[in-house]
Every structure is written in structure tokens, then in C-alpha cells.
């Protein structure tokens, strides 16, 4: 009998696994008290007004008081101008019962202040200007319009959806309603009472499934609406497995931002995932603007946007004017304050840079981390690691990094090794580093509650764990079994944790071993929604509710500090799953536990494009898919796609079949080899792009609209990407196709486009719009933009560091005027010396048949590398002779036509040397 039940249980479990995520494990807006409370405002509106006479103006800001006209509660606001066409609006209670949480550590530093000029106060309007931008405040009802060069781009609270629940004492008489019975509150017809009580049954305590949230501080939600009058589409607010363009939520739940460990997540979904980056952009042909909603509590975002269907677009086309209200976003957070940054563009790239100026960028990564990573849960033992590494050499496939998932540890005790499987980690590491390779090991934030484990002992003794409401160490369940979670919000805890990476403590690794921080949402197997309860208590007496989305971020800060302290002159590499605004300063991300199917492959680009414009250029997806077994074709196409995303790692679940390239048929192995080699050949471009990301904030990969903002047909394209403005990539992401439709964007609204050159053949593409392109199994459809110059390294090596001294090939693709320009950055690929000028940063310029160099910055790095070849695509004829002048010495070079390009043989000039190359036509 019991046995039979057991079988049934297993069968059910199996069925649940095979069908992917169970959405019932996660809340809907309706199941979340603050979301349903705040969302109600969308039908009733709210009444906030500026209190006349409370305004104060300063050189960079304006302050004043607001009143909620219904309950007369007072708020204070501050509107600041920041450098770079950005405003910051903060609203807090004037005299809160207790302090409300304000996000720390997300911004890269104190934002640079701008200057304002206060203009007339007429008709209750206050106008302030700052450079090209203008903010117009309206007193009653309170709302602010932001203009960029006199075009209205963002309106704040124009819908009157501002909703700010002030802190209040708990009512003496607890409500009669039993918590959990979600009775109909007939809220729609509810008349506002004289008191401002909140009647929602979840206001003071809340249940979800078997979990109870004690909510000791009661209702404290904040919500605000933003409209984008100059925009046609909205995008941003990762992380969701959804299209690049945000969809209307009028008939669905809002997009949710709440870091969660979602098992087998589904695509085309607004469900929350591992990361939360509350930045949104509105884009139209003329203007782009953004809003960064700085709040680390659970947040839901309602999107108002025209339903894109044939009828509405036809109506718009015929009428030529907007029939629908402008796109808007309603941010709803459970606690904290209103802290919104309004970024006014005007172009997409400007807006992305404005966001980067606030939250920072990934610093220049070590080159190896941009190369190919080989991972699996798990490489079983030392022999396995060494054998896999050797196989890559046997089959001549470049590979830079081997990864160890949780099984390398002694019983999931981080900073330890399984002594049986990994008796001599240092010898194993040496086997890798001798070939320029690296090792990455995982260290997760859940700490095994084992009294014999030093880390647990220390955290217990020193009180370093996150606490329950009662003040005890919180115990959850994760990989090690019973586990507790260090409170990384406490600087002492971060320093303690960081110090564990010191090689004198963690003696079984070397400074070449880098880090992977997983499960840091945090994942708690037995917690509400697989994460930590909201009424846990953190450093500073803040509730987990206030800081949830920052937990992973604080974990990363600890890891980053640990690696920097371990070896101050080596740039850390960290991969994280959870992330918040600003986490990009510390780590690369991947899109978590995806599935080995074609839709997840397609979503790897959609998701990484959204992450890239939200600061996370260093993004990738598990190549091959984490769950399941990809067939040969899917694996081939996934490698080809992964080769053109910034973070390129193959990874797989422990229950999947092994899938190293040589375990597939020879053709697959060769296709994969080809894709990986192609990635390595473009490493100089990726490296330069990351340097420029650090310098300017411009994303490494970009949606088409970044450089083709006028082309409305390009706005929604999310199966193609740009690498900077140099490459257009459309990986094959459909099964069994012999051609793909590629969209070549227009530079204006008259269907004029750039020239594009096939990266393999230099065949020129001049059309705008969709072009059907034939593909073979080997083909990765990639074009270089006419007008760009980039550098490649075309000698395959076992690993990227072994390419350091290898010569470069310059690829020059000419525009319609016979011009092109592009940059190259090089340094030692490893240390921070580039910050002292130890680099070569060169801009190449080609026009009038001449190639010239211009060095930017200090040029102190001495490289052995040289230019072995220059390829020029777009020349009408082969020049009769090519001359190069270096240091006043002139020499002739050989040139030949190869495919659609002219190849100039062996200029043989070092990278830090000026030269002039001239094509002669007799």
C-alpha cells in the first residue's frame, strides 16, 4: 500500500519535472498584497500636491514638500540635476515612523551633480533647466514633465498613480479576517474612510502556500508611473525570458522583478528570474529616454503600450498620428522610497551611457574570460578535468577555462575540496595553467550548518548570519542540506568572506583560479518562492523585504574584494546568477538554468540584448542548454550563437549526457571547432569593445535600434545583434533551415542603409530590409559594416593567453565614400597596468586610399605583436601598388584579390608604431 503511494508520488514528481517550471510556486500580482493594493490606484488615481511655499532651490537641485490630499500625510521630495542630461527624483516621508530603506552600493559612486536654473513660477508651474534639458513641475496634481531639447520625453506621475504607503502603527484591533482566506474585499466600491487604514487582508501579515510573512511594519509600498511621450516602444527591466520589446501588461500580470531561482524557466514569460535591473527605456525615432527606479524590494512593473496588432498599426499608418496614449510604465515596489533617475538621451547610445555613468560598467576583463569556457555539473575528478583539457588539444579546439561546479567541494563546504576526487588540486591547476588555461570554481552563499566546518563556526560565533525576526540564525535548505546565509550587507562579513580567498588561507587554489557565484538570489529550497522569507533581518536592522534584490550584489562585492585583495594586480573574473543594478561592475552573468531546445536558444539573444542595455554587456547563456540533451544540430547552432555573445560557456546539468564536442559525430565536432576558432579570431574586437565599454559605457552588444534609431522596422528585432557598431550577427537559430532572413537596417526613414560585408567572403550587401541568405551547417551569418575597421587574430591557439604575441589582421570595410575607421586596444590582457597607461589604443582611419594611425592615450605598453595582413573590402580595383611608410622608410607591399577583398601581404609593422599605407592606382 505504502509502496504504491510512493510510486504514485514519484510518477507525479517526474511529470512535474518534465513539464518545466510550476508557475504555482510563484506569486501572481493578485497573490501579493502590495501589488494588488498599488495596482488598484490605476483605476482610482491618487491625489498628491505640492505644498506652496515649501520650495527651496540650490545650485543643482530643488526641494519641497508634498501632501497626500486624502490622508494629509506629508512627504518631501528632491529633484536634482545630474551631469549628462539626467535628473534624480527622490520622494520620502517627511517624518517617517522609522527610517525607510534607501538603496546603497548600486550606484558606482556619488553621481556627478549638474547645475540648474530656476525659471518663472507661472500657473503653479515651476520650470528648471539644465543644459539641453528642462523639467516642468506641476503643483496640483503633482507631476513633472521632462524635456530634452524642448521635446517632452518623460512624464512622471502624469497618470496620478503615485502611491506611497506611509508607515503607521499597527491597528490595536487586528482585523477579523483570518489571514490567508483571500476574501473578496469589494475594494472597487470601497469608500475611502476618514482614517487612512488599509483594509487589504495582506497588509499586516501574509501567507503564501505554507509560508507566513509576519510583516511587522505593515504596508509600506511605493509606486509611481512614468510616461514616454516621444517613444513607441519600451524595453529593459531584465531579467525576463521574453522579447526585447516589452509587452503590454493590460491583460496579464505585470513584469516582476524579484531575484528567484526558477527551475526550468519558461520562455515568453513575465515571471521573475534570477536578476532584477529596474531600468527601463522608451524609444521613438526622434528620442530615447530612460528611467532607473532604484529600489531593491520586490517590484512589479506594469507596461502600458499599444497592442501591436495589424489593425492598430494600420490605423496609426492611415491616420499618421498616435491614437493611443504614450507608452508608460508603472513601477510598484513593496518598500523603500521613490528614487528615480530620469535619463533624457536623446539617442539610444546616449541613454545607455547615462545609465552606465550612474551604475558603472564591467571593467576590462582578462582576455581569457572572453574566450571559450568549458563547464559541466560536474567534472568528476582531477583525472576528468585533465582528460577533457587534453581532448581539446587532441582535436585542436581552443579552450580557455575549465569549470568546477558544486561537486568539487567536501560535502558542499565552500573553500574546501573533496579530498578523494581532488587530492591534488594544485597539480591539476598547473596542468591547465601551463597551457595558458584557467580554472573557475563555484562558491555559493549557502553555508553548511556543520559544527566541524570552520566557516560555519566563524559565522555562528561572530553572528555573521542573516537572522530571523526572533534574532536567531536563519536556517534554510540548499545543496549542503541545512544551511545558513552570511549577511553580506555587513561590511565585517564581507571582509571576513573576502579574506577567505587569500592564498594563505585558501591554499588549494592559485591566483589564476577564478570564481563563480551561483544560487545567490538567494536560493532556499524550502523557503517561500524558493528564496528567503521577507521578514528575516539584515545588518542595520533592515528587513530582507527591503534588500532582497541586492543580496546577490552584496555577495559579489565580497567576492570581488576577495579576489582583488588576493592579487591586487590581477583583474578578477566572477560569474554570477543573481544581479541588480550595478552588479555589472563585479561580474559577468549568464541566463541561468535554460533548456536544450530551440526557443531557449533564441531567447539567449533576446535576454542578453536586454541585459546589455541594462548595463550587463558581459552576458551569455549555457551553450547547449542546461537541462536536457541537445541533438547535434541544436548543439552546433548553439555554439555558433554563443560564439557571438560576450560570455561564451558550455554548461550542462548533472543528469544530462556528456556533450564535449568529440562525443558527437565528426561533422558536429568540426562545426564546433569552426565556431570556437571564429570566436578566437575576433577576440581583439571583443577585447577592444570591453575596453570601450569601461571607458564610455557603450554596450558591447547592441540591439539594432542603437545605431538605426530611425528605422521603425528594426525596433523589435531581437534575433539579430550588433557587436558595437561593427558587426551584424544573425545566428541560425531554427532547426533544419538552409536559409535565414536577415534584416539590414536603414540609417534614415528613406530606406537608405549601410553597406555590409559578409565576414567570411566579403560579399557586399547593399539592400535595406529583409534579405534571404543561404546557410550551410558551418555558416554563421555575420557581416561587417562598411565604414568600420576591426582587428582579428587568425592564428588558432590552444588558449587565448598563448595568442598574446600573435600578429593581427586588420579588416577594413569601406562605406559608400570609400572610408572606414575603427579602434584597437591592447595591453597585457591580465593586470591593472593599463590604468597606468600600459596599453596601446589606436584608431585606424582609411580614406582617399590611405590608411593612417592615431594613437589615443599613453601608448606605454610594449607589444611584440605586429600586423601580418590588411584586408580591404569594398575597393573597386586591386591597386597597382601598395606602399607603406614607417619612420620615414618607405617600402612596397604585395597585394592580391581574395574573394570580395584585397589582401595586403605582411605590412610587418608593430602595433605601437605609426605608419601610413597608401594604395596606388596607375
Amino acid at each position, binding site marked *: 500500500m505504502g509502496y504504491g503511494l510512493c510510486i504514485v508520488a514519484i510518477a507525479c514528481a517526474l511529470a512535474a519535472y518534465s513539464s518545466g517550471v510550476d508557475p504555482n510556486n510563484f506569486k501572481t500580482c493578485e497573490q501579493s498584497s502590495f501589488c494588488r493594493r498599488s495596482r488598484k490606484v490605476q483605476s482610482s488615481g491618487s491625489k498628491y500636491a505640492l505644498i506652496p511655499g515649501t520650495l527651496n532651490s540650490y545650485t543643482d537641485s530643488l526641494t519641497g514638500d508634498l501632501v497626500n490630499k486624502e490622508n494629509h500625510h506629508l512627504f518631501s521630495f528632491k529633484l536634482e540635476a545630474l551631469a549628462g542630461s539626467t535628473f534624480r527624483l527622490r520622494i520620502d516621508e517627511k517624518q517617517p515612523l522609522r527610517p525607510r530603506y534607501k538603496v546603497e552600493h548600486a550606484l558606482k559612486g556619488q553621481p556627478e551633480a549638474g547645475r540648474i536654473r530656476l525659471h518663472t513660477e507661472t500657473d503653479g508651474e515651476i520650470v528648471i533647466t539644465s543644459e539641453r534639458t528642462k523639467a516642468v513641475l506641476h503643483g496640483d496634481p503633482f507631476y513633472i514633465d521632462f524635456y530634452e531639447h524642448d521635446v517632452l520625453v518623460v512624464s512622471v506621475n502624469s497618470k496620478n498613480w503615485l502611491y506611497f504607503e506611509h508607515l503607521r502603527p499597527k491597528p490595536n484591533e487586528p482585523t477579523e479576517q483570518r489571514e490567508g482566506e483571500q476574501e473578496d474585499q469589494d475594494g472597487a466600491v470601497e469608500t475611502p474612510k476618514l482614517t487612512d487604514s488599509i483594509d487589504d487582508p495582506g497588509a499586516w501579515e501574509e501567507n503564501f502556500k505554507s509560508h507566513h510573512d509576519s510583516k511587522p511594519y505593515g504596508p509600506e509600498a511605493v509606486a509611481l508611473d512614468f510616461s514616454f511621450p516621444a517613444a513607441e516602444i519600451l524595453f529593459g527591466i531584465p531579467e525576463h525570458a521574453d522579447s526585447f520589446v516589452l509587452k503590454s501588461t493590460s491583460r496579464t500580470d505585470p513584469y516582476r522583478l524579484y531575484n528567484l531561482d526558477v527551475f526550468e524557466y519558461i520562455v515568453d514569460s513575465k515571471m521573475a528570474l534570477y536578476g532584477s535591473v529596474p531600468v527601463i527605456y522608451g524609444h521613438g525615432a526622434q528620442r530615447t529616454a530612460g528611467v532607473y527606479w532604484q529600489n531593491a524590494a520586490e517590484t512589479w512593473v506594469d507596461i502600458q503600450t499599444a497592442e501591436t496588432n495589424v489593425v492598430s498599426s494600420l490605423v496609426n499608418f492611415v491616420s499618421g498620428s498616435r491614437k493611443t496614449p504614450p507608452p508608460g510604465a508603472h513601477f510598484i515596489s513593496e518598500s523603500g522610497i521613490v528614487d528615480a533617475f530620469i535619463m533624457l538621451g536623446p539617442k539610444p547610445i546616449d541613454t545607455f551611457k547615462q545609465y552606465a555613468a550612474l551604475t558603472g560598467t564591467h571593467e576590462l576583463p582578462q582576455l581569457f574570460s572572453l574566450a571559450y569556457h568549458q563547464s559541466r555539473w560536474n567534472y568528476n575528478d582531477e583525472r576528468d578535468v585533465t582528460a577533457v583539457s587534453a581532448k581539446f588539444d587532441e582535436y585542436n579546439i581552443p579552450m580557455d577555462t575549465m569549470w568546477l561546479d558544486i561537486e568539487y567541494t567536501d560535502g558542499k563546504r565552500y573553500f574546501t575540496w573533496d579530498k578523494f576526487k581532488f587530492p591534488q588540486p594544485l597539480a591539476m591547476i598547473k596542468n591547465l595553467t601551463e597551457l595558458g588555461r584557467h580554472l573557475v570554481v563555484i562558491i555559493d552563499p549557502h553555508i553548511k550548518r556543520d559544527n566541524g566546518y570552520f566557516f560555519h563556526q566563524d559565522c555562528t560565533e561572530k553572528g555573521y548570519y542573516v537572522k530571523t525576526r526572533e534574532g536567531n540564525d536563519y536556517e534554510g535548505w540548499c545543496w549542503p542540506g541545512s544551511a545558513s546565509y552570511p549577511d553580506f550587507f555587513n561590511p565585517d562579513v564581507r571582509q571576513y568572506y573576502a579574506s577567505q580567498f587569500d592564498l594563505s588561507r585558501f591554499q588549494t587554489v592559485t591566483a589564476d583560479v577564478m570564481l563563480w557565484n551561483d544560487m545567490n538570489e538567494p536560493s532556499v529550497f524550502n523557503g517561500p518562492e524558493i528564496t528567503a522569507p521577507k521578514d528575516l533581518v539584515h545588518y542595520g536592522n533592515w528587513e530582507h523585504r527591503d534588500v532582497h534584490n541586492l543580496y546577490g550584489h552584496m555577495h559579489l562585492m565580497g567576492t570581488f574584494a576577495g579576489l582583488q585583495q588576493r592579487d591586487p594586480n590581477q583583474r578578477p573574473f566572477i560569474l554570477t546568477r543573481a544581479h541588480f543594478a550595478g552588479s555589472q561592475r563585479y561580474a559577468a552573468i549568464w541566463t541561468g538554468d535554460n533548456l536544450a531546445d530551440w526557443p531557449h536558444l533564441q531567447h539567449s539573444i533576446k535576454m542578453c540584448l536586454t541585459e546589455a542595455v541594462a548595463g550587463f554587456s558581459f552576458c551569455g547563456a549555457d551553450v547547449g542548454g542546461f537541462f536536457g540533451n541537445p541533438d547535434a544540430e541544436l548543439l552546433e547552432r548553439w555554439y555558433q550563437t554563443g560564439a557571438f555573445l560576450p560570455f561564451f560557456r558550455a554548461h550542462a546539468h548533472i543528469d544530462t549526457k556528456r556533450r564535449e564536442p568529440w562525443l558527437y559525430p565528426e561533422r558536429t565536432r568540426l562545426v564546433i571547432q569552426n565556431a570556437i576558432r571564429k570566436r578566437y579570431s575576433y577576440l581583439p574586437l571583443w577585447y577592444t569593445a570591453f575596453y570601450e565599454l569601461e571607458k564610455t559605457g557603450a554596450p558591447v552588444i547592441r540591439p539594432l535600434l542603437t545605431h538605426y534609431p530611425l528605422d521603425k522596422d528594426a525596433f523589435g528585432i531581437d534575433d539579430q545583434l550588433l557587436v558595437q557598431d561593427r558587426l551584424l550577427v544573425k545566428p541560425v537559430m531554427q532547426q533544419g533551415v538552409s536559409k535565414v532572413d536577415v534584416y539590414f537596417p536603414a540609417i534614415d526613414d528613406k530606406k537608405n542603409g549601410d553597406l555590409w560585408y559578409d565576414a567570411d567572403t566579403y560579399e557586399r550587401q547593399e539592400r535595406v530590409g529583409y534579405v534571404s541568405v543561404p546557410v550551410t551547417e558551418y555558416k554563421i551569418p555575420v557581416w561587417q559594416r562598411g565604414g568600420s575597421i576591426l582587428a582579428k587574430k587568425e592564428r588558432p591557439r590552444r588558449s587565448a593567453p598563448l595568442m598574446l604575441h600573435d600578429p593581427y589582421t586588420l579588416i577594413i570595410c569601406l562605406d559608400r565614400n570609400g572610408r572606414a575607421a575603427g579602434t584597437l586596444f591592447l595591453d597585457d590582457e591580465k593586470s591593472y597596468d593599463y590604468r597606468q597607461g600600459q596599453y596601446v589604443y589606436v584608431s585606424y582611419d582609411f580614406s582617399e586610399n590611405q590608411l593612417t594611425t592615431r594613437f589615443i592615450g599613453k601608448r606605454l605598453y610594449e607589444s611584440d605583436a605586429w600586423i601580418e595582413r590588411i584586408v580591404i573590402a569594398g575597393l573597386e580595383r586591386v591597386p597597382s601598388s601598395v606602399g607603406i611608410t614607417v619612420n620615414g622608410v618607405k617600402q612596397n607591399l604585395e597585394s592580391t584579390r581574395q574573394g570580395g577583398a584585397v589582401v595586403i*601581404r605582411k605590412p610587418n609593422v608593430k602595433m605601437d608604431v605609426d605608419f601610413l599605407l597608401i594604395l596606388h592606382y596607375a
Partner: protein
Amino acid sequence: MHRAISQQLAILAALALSVSWCAADVPRPRGVSLIKAPLYQPRAGDDSWTCLDGSKTIPFVQVNDDYCDCPDGSDEPGTSACAQGQFHCLNKGHESVDIPSSRVQDGVCDCCDGSDESQVVGCANTCAELGAAAAIQRRNQAELHKQGAEKRQEMITRGRQLRADRETRRLELERRIKDQEALKSEKQQIKINAEALESDALEVFKEQQRELDADTVQAEEEPQQMRQEASLSFGVYDINKDGFVEVTELMVDINLDRDRNGVVTVEEAKYFLDERERVDLDAFVTLAWPRIKPLKMLAEGLFQPPHADEQVPKVPVEATTEGVQQSQPQPTEEQIDMEASTDGEADEEGDEDQYDDEEGDVGVGEASPEIEAPAPPVYDPETQRLVEQANEARNALEEVERNIREIEQEVKEIDEQSAKDYGQQEEWAVLDGECYNFEDREYVYTLCPFDRASQKPKNGGAETTLGRWEQWIGEGYKYSKQKYGNGAACWNGPQRSAIINISCALEPRITSVGEPNRCEYYFEFETPAACDSEAQRAESVHDEL
């Protein structure tokens, strides 16, 4: 060419020259093997040179100038310029090898003579040591194989002997089957005769019994009851509802398989019909039913619950000695199951016990003692003698048939064994029947070659089959790997399987067990059977290529 020329290039050029003229007898560009040296000669007159694939002619000075001119990469044998090129390490004192050009000048010493890197890297020349070590290794390997080959020879001898023994034995068994078959027909005849006599005697005896019974007081009810149940049975047996029960209709009731050989023969069926082809209801009631009933009861007894007084009637006909529950409706099997499970809910443990008991009974295939056939009737001495004779005849036949089955089973086993591939010289045969263990931290692994591989947790717990013998799967040399498949299924995963990689050693043993793929095991197994000097030679030739 001024300071723009890379330092490395200069070194490289210098190296190329020095190698060309100093390192070996035949002048040739760096990275070219002695064999290929003649291919790298400038054409007389114009000092040009043609790529080895003939696709292009270039000035000879462009050979090894660190720029790839030839599509086949042949112009850069000594640099890394061509992606698909090869570099020849001469490795004097050790084995020469070709390495991919991608390993030239990358700062890693790949050739033991260091020739793939510039002097800046400072590769030590380790060829002499490696060569010596390799020679020792080869000698040891050869010695091992030599000694192993002796042992292997013994195994071959024994394996061949085993095969010969099997063949001899098989012939012997075939002969015995023939003998037994003859014996069987003999015994069958004896049985038929004895049973005929028995049958007649019993008929007479029963006739007498009937007369006697008619006199008894209580006899009124019983025949009526008997008749009722007999009629019911008649209805069941009379499948075609023609008013007769025929031989064929009885043959479907396996309960009537008196000799328990799995089929109800015509003879057996006829016995119950009083040696007739068919009987009508009356004849069935008087002649057939008395013979059928004891067997039915016996059969039903198999499924009786242990407590006779609580038993649920389960079959269409029920007439035990205390059979008064006749009027109860006859539950179907499903109903019985349902009742059993209802019981289970009321008293789970008790039910489990009961269930276990039942299982045990079914497995053993014996009737519960209480239901053992009712006390046999007491015959007159002559009838008794005939019945005993018939029993003896039946037993004798049964014994012969059992003998035949046993012999056939042995033949089958021999044939299965003979079908196994024990190698070209039967050298693996002696491993069949042996088992080898290997312990790691958690498990004891067992390999029984040609049978199965398994795993048993050291801290207790059941043994798990990792796979059953399938075949040899060595690539190149077939007898270097074995595959065991169809093991116990993994939770949420495939069926387990194991691959055995086999190498030569003087004593048989498992040296390691791993699970490189979930549920796919990999054993390293050593045995002298693998010490095949020819195979080794083939392999080492392969290595040199």
C-alpha cells in the same frame, strides 16, 4: 628592416637559418622532416618554390617567412602562420612527431628538443631522458607482455579445453536425450496400460460406492449438492453450449494438468470424461465431476487465505466439506482484490502480512496444508494395487520427462556459452564464471566477465546491476573493451551500463571504476588474457603514426 620588425621575427629568421644548416645532415627549412626535405628546394633559375598542393608558386624566401601564402599551409612548416600547418619535431634521441603549427611559438614547449619555440622561451632538450624512459617503458611493457603471453597461453589452452569439453559434453547429452526419449515412449505405454486398468477398477469401485451411499441417511443432501455444483461446472466447461462437455473443452482448464507438465493433454482430458470423447450433463455429474472436483479443490487451495473459517468464496464452484456458503454470490477476481484492499485499509499491517504469505505460496506453488485433498477413499486391495501401479507408472513417466528437461536445459546453457565470443583463441573463456571486486570510498564494484557488472553500497543496501554482458566493443582491436548493458534503470535517467577497458597484466584485477556519464560506468580491468603481443605490436605501430 628598422625597428618595426618584431624582435621575435628576427629571432625566428635566425633560428630558421641555423636549423637549416646545422641541425641535421640534410639542409632543410625549420619544421620539415627528413623525408620531406627534398620537397623544400628552390627551383633552379628563379629561386621560386611551389606549394606542395601545387596551387601557387612563391619566391623560396617566402618559405618560413611567418606569412601564410599556400592554402595548404605548406610554405610555413616552421612557423605558426598557417592554421592547418604541421611542424616536425625531430626529437633526436626520442620519437619524432608532427605537431600542429598552432603550437609553434606559443611559449609552450611541445617538442622534447624544444625546436617548436624560440630560444627566448628556453625549452630544455629533454629528448634523451624521455627517450631513455620510453625505452625502459617499452622494455617493461614488452617484458610484461612476454610474461603475460605465457599466462595467456595457459588461458588459451584452458579455454580450448573448455570448449572441447563442452562439445564432448554436448554430444553426450544429445545421446542421452535420445535414450531418454526412447525410455519416455516406453513409460508412456506402461502408464496408459496401468491407467486403463486403474480406470476400470475405479469404475467398479465407484459403482459399489454409489450403491453403498444410497443407503446412508445423510446421502440425500450431498448428491443433490454435488449435482448442483457439478451442473454449474458443466455450464462453465461447456463453452460452445451444445449440451456436451468435450475433450477439447476440458483441455483449456490447466487445473486438470495432472502430471503438471504445463499442458492438459487429450489423454488427461479423456481421463476426466471416463475415456469418452464427450459427456452430457448426467454423465458429467456422475462420471466426470467426481474426478475433476478434487483437482479443482486442490487448485483453489493455492489461493485460500490462511484462515479457513474466514475465507471468502472465490471460485464458481465451492464445495468444501464445510461448504455451506454456496448461496453466497460469487465474487469476481476484481471484487476479491477490492475486498483485499478494503481489508488493507482497515488493517494495513495485517493485510501486508497476508499479502506476503500469499506471495510466498504462489512462489512455492504448493497448496495450503488445510486444503490438501480430502482423505483418499479406502479402496479394496485389488483396486488399491491397480491405483498404486498406475501411480508408479505416472511417476516413472514424470521422472523421465524431468530428466529430458534437465538435459535440454544443460544443452541450452552449453549452446549459450558456445555462442559467447571468448576471443580468437578462446583466451577469455576461463574468465566466464569468475568475479572480481573493486572497492572505492562508497561502493564495492563487481565484474563477472561475460555475465554482469554490479555495484553494492559499502554501508549496506541492495546490489545494483550496472549491466549484463552484451559484447566486445573495442575500436580497432575488438577485444580491448567490453560492454555490459540493460542494467537497473536510474531514477529519472537511462538504464545503467558499463564499459570495461581491458589491459594486460600478470594478475587479473579491476584497477579503477568511474562514472564519467551519469549511469554509465567505466571499469579498468587487467588480465593476462589481454597480453596479446600481436595486438600490442599493432597498437604501437599505430602510435608511431
